[in-house]
Structure formats: structure tokens, C-alpha cells
């Protein structure tokens, strides 16, 4: 690849990034609803289980992680759908730039709009569940490393189901089993740290999952989108 093409590729990525952010700014409900869901769903647990703070503190990391995962799942369906329906995704495929890089751009916009607010909101939920500041900080760290994995892996499922009517139910069936490792290490890091254990290993494993999915997921999602577009 000549230098000028690679330069224009990065410009294309930047343009796509701006465009997706602008679109998200015009269509706020698409990414705000999953966030509201994140808060409400987490609040349901204390209501269902009872206000005993000892139990709540113990189950908080698991619940916050599971709810974060479900919120990410809710927002996945819209990741490529509107672009697929109005045909702009086809235009993106037809550009000379590497399709997987452009997909990576779209995924990072998705993470900025769903993952990052989730991380910023997590201290609020941590207060509801009486987590102390140390545990809250670790929760935020695991979410920071883990939520991009949710967007990246979810993009594959979203790409596979984008052409289908009623794809969203299928999407959760495809993606949830793949979320298991992130959930295990994310939620258990918080639990392990409150038990006084070292969590460096947990964080490194989540980080390695992140590196692996950044490398491979855009390729798989790009291939899947090509098939969906046909």
C-alpha cells in the first residue's frame, strides 16, 4: 500500500468517526436508553433481594457486571442496523480503505457511547450497593478494560444478524456465550480484591482478552458484514 492511500485511510477513519458521533448526537435515545436500563435494572436487585448491606456488597460486582453486559447487548442491535438499512454500509464497503479498520472505527464509536458512560455511571451504582471506594475503583478499572471487549465481540454478532428481521433475540443467543470469560474475570477481580487477594493477574487476563479481540474481532465482523450485505 502506498503512503498516500494509508494516509487517506486514516482520514477516512476519522471522517467516519465524526459522522457516527454526529449521528449519535442527533439520535440520543439509541445510546441513552441502554444507560437508563443499566441503572434501573441494577436498582431492581436491592428491591428484590432486600436492603441488607452485607449481602448487597457481596453480590454487587457480579450484578453490576451482568447488568453492564445486558446494557451492552441492548445497544448492539443498533450498531450497524441503520447504516445497513439506508445503504451507507454498502458505500463503506465499496471504499478502497480496509473495511475492517472502518469497522473498528464504528466499534470504537459504539464503545465511546455505551461503554464509557457505563464506566462513569458505575460509581453511582457502587454507592447503591455500599461498595467502598477501593472496590469501586477496581470495578471501574475492570469495566474500563472489559467493556471494549463487549463492544468488539458483540460487533461480530451484530454483523451476522444485521440483515435479519427479529435479529436482536438471536443476537443475544450468539453473543452471550462469548461474553462468559470477560464476565468471570471482571466480576471476580472485584470480589478477589475485597478478599485481600492480588488482582494483577485478573486485570492482565482481561487486558489480553482486549488485545486479542481488538486484533481479531474487526476482521470477523468485517467478513460477517460482507456476507450480510451479500
Amino acid at each position, binding site marked *: 500500500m502506498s503512503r498516500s492511500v494509508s494516509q487517506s485511510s486514516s482520514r477516512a477513519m476519522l471522517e467516519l468517526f465524526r459522522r457516527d458521533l454526529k449521528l449519535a448526537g442527533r439520535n440520543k435515545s439509541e445510546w441513552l436508553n441502554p444507560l437508563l436500563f443499566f441503572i434501573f435494572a441494577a436498582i431492581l436487585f436491592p428491591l428484590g433481594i432486600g436492603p441488607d448491606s452485607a449481602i448487597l456488597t457481596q453480590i454487587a460486582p457480579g450484578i453490576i457486571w451482568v447488568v453492564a453486559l445486558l446494557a451492552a447487548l441492548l445497544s448492539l442491535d443498533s450498531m450497524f442496523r441503520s447504516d445497513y438499512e439506508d445503504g451507507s454500509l454498502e458505500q463503506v464497503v465499496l471504499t478502497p480503505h480496509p473495511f475492517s479498520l472502518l469497522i473498528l472505527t464504528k466499534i470504537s464509536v459504539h464503545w465511546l457511547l455505551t461503554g464509557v458512560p457505563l464506566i462513569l455511571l458505575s460509581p453511582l451504582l457502587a454507592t447503591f450497593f455500599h461498595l467502598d471506594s477501593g472496590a469501586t475503583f477496581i470495578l471501574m478499572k475492570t469495566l474500563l478494560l472489559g467493556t471494549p471487549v463487549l463492544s468488539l465481540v458483540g460487533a*461480530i454478532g451484530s454483523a*451476522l444478524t444485521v440483515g435479519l428481521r427479529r435479529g436482536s433475540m438471536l443476537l443475544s*443467543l*450468539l453473543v452471550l*456465550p*462469548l461474553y*462468559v*470469560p470477560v464476565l*468471570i*474475570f471482571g466480576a471476580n477481580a472485584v470480589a478477589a480484591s475485597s478478599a485481600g487477594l492480588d488482582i494483577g493477574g485478573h486485570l492482565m487476563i482481561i487486558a489480553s482478552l482486549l488485545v486479542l479481540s481488538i486484533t481479531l474481532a474487526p476482521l470477523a465482523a468485517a467478513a460477517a458484514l460482507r456476507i450480510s450485505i451479500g
Partner: protein
Amino acid sequence: MFKAITKLASLRNFYFFAGKLIPWFGWPTLILLLVGLYWGLVVAPPDYQQKDSYRIIFIHVPAAWMSLFIYMVMAFSAAASLIWKTKASEVFANSCAPIGAAFTFLALATGSLWGKPMWGTWWEWDARLTSELVLLFLYLGYIALQSAIEDRRTAARATAILAIVGVVNIPIIHFSVEWWFTLHQGPTVTKMGKASMDSSMLIPLLIMAVAFKTYFFTVALMRSRNEILERESHTKWVQEERERL
């Protein structure tokens, strides 16, 4: 060489080739199953701790091996269909999925039945049971995606990607679950010859494992033949074949 493969990969040739192969897998399956079951359930001595309830391993362990083995076969077949666009491997990958799901379910059900007298509970969140459960969901997702897409060729390509993603994830899921918690007894049969198991029990177990493998190939080839007849129902050779049957 490559020509021979592409020739075999045409659906018509694969249909007749599979028809020739089926008896070579089917009869050994029948014989090995009878021998393995008789040996395992009647001849093999009872375990000194678990008495007779250990005998479920002659079903459980081969089924658990098959659940992973079939996923690998399915993914390789699916990858081949993505790379060389061979229809025969698409059909074969598709026919693997329900069989694999069935074996995974069998491994889970027998594990649960064994768990009741041994652990005192039907279900324990033990590492290998959990990763087997996740594997079942991977199979179900594959089947669901396949049936959701109407065009067969598109469906085959989409599920192929899912299968490959699944293969990358299976070891990750397995080790993360294993690391998470384990109650399960360590693997008994690790390497040939170094198994912590008496040969009077090991031999019937291995016979059963081979029987399950030949059973899988028999049924997968039969399912492939059915799917080929369905896919190619508009062609002349299928109509001739129908009249012959």
C-alpha cells in the same frame, strides 16, 4: 490432487461417496457399541469407591469428548467451505451441528445423573460442567443462526464465521471457567498408557469412544445425504435417485 477434491466436493459426487462410506462406519458402530456396552456394563469390575454408579462414564466421557471433537470437525468443515467455496463441506458442517448439540446434552445429562449420588446434587457449578453448558449454547446459537437465514449459501457462510469465532473462544472459555472454580475430579484419561484407570475399565471406555466417533460419522453422512437431496431437488439426478429409492 486439488482436482480430485473439487470433484468430490460437488454435491452429486459427495452424495454417492457418502453412500458408499456409510456402511463402513455403520457396521463398526453397531459392533463396537454392543461390545463396549456389554464390556462396560457387565464385564468390567465395579469401582471400589463408586461401586456401580461409575459405569455411567462409559457414556458420559465419550459423549463429552465427542462434544468438543464435533465442534472442531464442524469448524474445519465450515472453514473449508469459506475458503474453497465447496458446497459439500457446507452441507457436512450443517449436519454436524445437531449431532454435536445432542452429544453435549448427553454429556450434561449423564454428568448430572452421576452428580446426584456422588456430589449429592443434580447440578454443581463445576468448571467442566459449566464449560460444557456454554458449549451447548454455542451449538444452539449456530443452529439458530442457520435456521434464521433463508438463503442456504448465505446461511452457510455466516454460520462458518460463527463456528470459527467459536473455535477461537472455546479454549478461552474453558480455561477461564476452569480457573474460576473446580470441583470436578481431575481428568482420568490423560495420555495413552498413563491413565489412572485399570485396563479392565479403560479398554471398554476406549471402545465406546471409537463407537461414538463412527456413530457420528455415520449419522453426519446420512444427514448430509438428506440435505443434498433437499438442496438439489430440482436437478435431474435427484429425481432419478428418488425413483430408484
